[in-house]
């Protein structure tokens, strides 16, 4: 089969003779991928920022597919089902899954306890091959995979595997009250979706901050929010204080993670691996939120540590909330929003690229070429599928 093959930082190869995955556990399923996405957090892997990313691995944690084989223990899925597969690998049985913390499963990642298993996201997240391939092994097939509702566009469905739930949960964790001012750092797909979802919780004002004009223009239209370029400001924190009556935003969302730019000391120490990437966005969020405000973090940070303004967290009485999105918990509500036309996830997709050209897709996304917001990969075996049957 065709699969993406990681060869080292900034190096991707299309492998054409990768053996197809096999059932390795009674609760496994094999899925033929119909669509997969490249996530902003895949770029952290691509840039060599995530420890234990091994040469030869296939990335990809956002995908839909058709079930081609199921293990003997699988009861809820059958061959031929078209499913969207949440990026979390969750057992459904451990205490965390039972409490709907599906992003924190205790039975899917032997290498580390801090993070549950994630498809195609290094051996630090369990060592599973991902969906940027023609076929994928899907563990715990009765728990995560969800049948795509009939008539749903599969581009909407694939956007429900990570981007939409993560953006939604970012807003949800913000505890937004009606009329609140919400500031989102990062106008990538997650940030734009977080800004869009902030309105669903009753925000009175939504501001998005980035340094790329094309993304800000996109965000302004898609999320109907204010958008500002921090490179045009002397200091984004002062700007945000001024525009919030010098009090600070009620809620700040960090949708950037470990590759934020804007603070030289953070950039340099991040690149030298003296910390796990740059924590600029998180520091700006902490310093821009009001006293007693809430900072919600969905930007991905590597291990082991980052330099953040912990003194300000204490002195301002900030509530810091963070987690990997619990996709399965949020799916029923989000499917409803898509079906009712409240959310249009596929509207974020700007590039549709054959899987065979995955190397180019990564470069375009990473180098911010061609006004790229979100690239979609289409396997050669799935060019006919558009709408779920």
């Amino acid at each position, binding site marked *: 089969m065709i699969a993406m093959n990681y*060869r080292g*930082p900034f*190096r991707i*190869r299309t492998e054409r003779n990768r053996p197809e995955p096999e059932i*390795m*556990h*009674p*609760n*496994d399923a094999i899925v033929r991928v119909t669509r997969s996405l490249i996530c902003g957090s895949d770029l952290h892997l691509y840039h*060599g920022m995530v*420890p*234990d*990313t*091994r*040469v*030869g*691995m296939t990335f990809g944690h956002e995908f839909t597919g058709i079930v081609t084989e199921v293990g003997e*223990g699988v009861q809820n899925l059958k061959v031929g089902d078209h499913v969207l597969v949440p990026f979390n*690998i969750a*057992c459904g049985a*451990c*205490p*965390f899954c*039972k*409490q*709907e*913390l599906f992003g924190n499963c205790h039975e899917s*990642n*032997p*290498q*580390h*306890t801090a993070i549950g*298993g994630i498809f195609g996201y290094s*051996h*630090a997240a369990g*060592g599973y091959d991902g969906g940027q391939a023609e076929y994928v092994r899907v563990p*715990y097939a009765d728990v995560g995979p969800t049948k795509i509702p009939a008539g749903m566009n599969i*581009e909407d469905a694939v956007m429900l595997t990570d981007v939409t739930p993560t953006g939604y*949960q970012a807003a*949800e*964790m913000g505890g937004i009250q009606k009329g609140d001012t919400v500031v989102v750092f990062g106008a990538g797909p997650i940030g734009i979706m977080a800004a869009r979802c902030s309105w669903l919780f009753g925000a009175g004002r939504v501001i998005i901050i980035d340094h790329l004009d094309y993304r800000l223009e996109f965000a302004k239209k898609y999320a109907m929010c204010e958008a500002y370029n921090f490179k045009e400001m002397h200091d984004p924190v002062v700007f945000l204080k001024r525009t919030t009556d010098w009090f600070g935003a009620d809620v700040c969302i960090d949708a950037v993670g470990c590759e934020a730019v804007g603070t030289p000391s953070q950039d340099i120490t991040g690149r030298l*691996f003296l910390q796990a990437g740059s924590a600029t966005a998180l520091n700006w969020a902490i310093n821009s939120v009001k006293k007693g405000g809430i900072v919600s973090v969905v930007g991905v940070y590597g291990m*082991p540590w980052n330099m953040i303004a912990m003194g300000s967290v204490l002195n301002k009485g900030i*509530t810091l*909330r963070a*987690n990997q999105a*619990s996709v399965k918990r949020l799916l029923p509500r989000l499917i409803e929003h898509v079906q009712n036309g409240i959310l249009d996830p596929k509207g974020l997709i700007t590039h*549709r690229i*054959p899987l065979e*050209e995955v*190397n*180019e897709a*990564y*470069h*375009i996304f*990473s180098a911010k*070429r*061609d006004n790229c917001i979100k690239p979609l990969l*289409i396997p050669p075996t799935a*060019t006919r599928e558009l709408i779920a049957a």
Partner: protein
Amino acid sequence: MDTKAKNRFAKGSDTYQEVLTGDVDRKIADTVKNIPGWGIDADRENDPTYPMKHRNGADYERIHYEAPPQQPLTMKVFQSIERPRMTSVFGTSVPPRGLSGALRGFAYRYSETDTRHWMTLLLADRVNVVEGVIDDFSKGIVPNIFAERGWTAEGNTIDREQSKKLPSVQRSVQR
């Protein structure tokens, strides 16, 4: 935990039901409850994890949960020293081997809070890249760095601009 305590927390027991309803935390010893003022300010609504966490008492039955069947271990898979056993499933993407594998083995001797764990893994990643190149050459493959870095996309920008007008599948087929 002794047998008596285990029985006390057994599924179906009165205590278990109390935990499910949030009235009792069975991890707390009876002696603690004699401390003056114990629990008088407890507020079940004060839950900063809401709505991420569906609080149903599962935290307190953690030693009793029935894990899924175990995936057979057919290759070397590292296990965090912060857990007592292998998880029920695990990935088999790239088994450790060579010098990078040895370095990873060293890293997994330390916990997730230890600098040696993470920095050794990062070092192993860089060694692994060199091993990958050597492996390529040994198979007669010369890595095409220009293509692997996706620089071939630079010349396609104009085509992409034009193809934006086409429906997605047509566009993908066209290219």
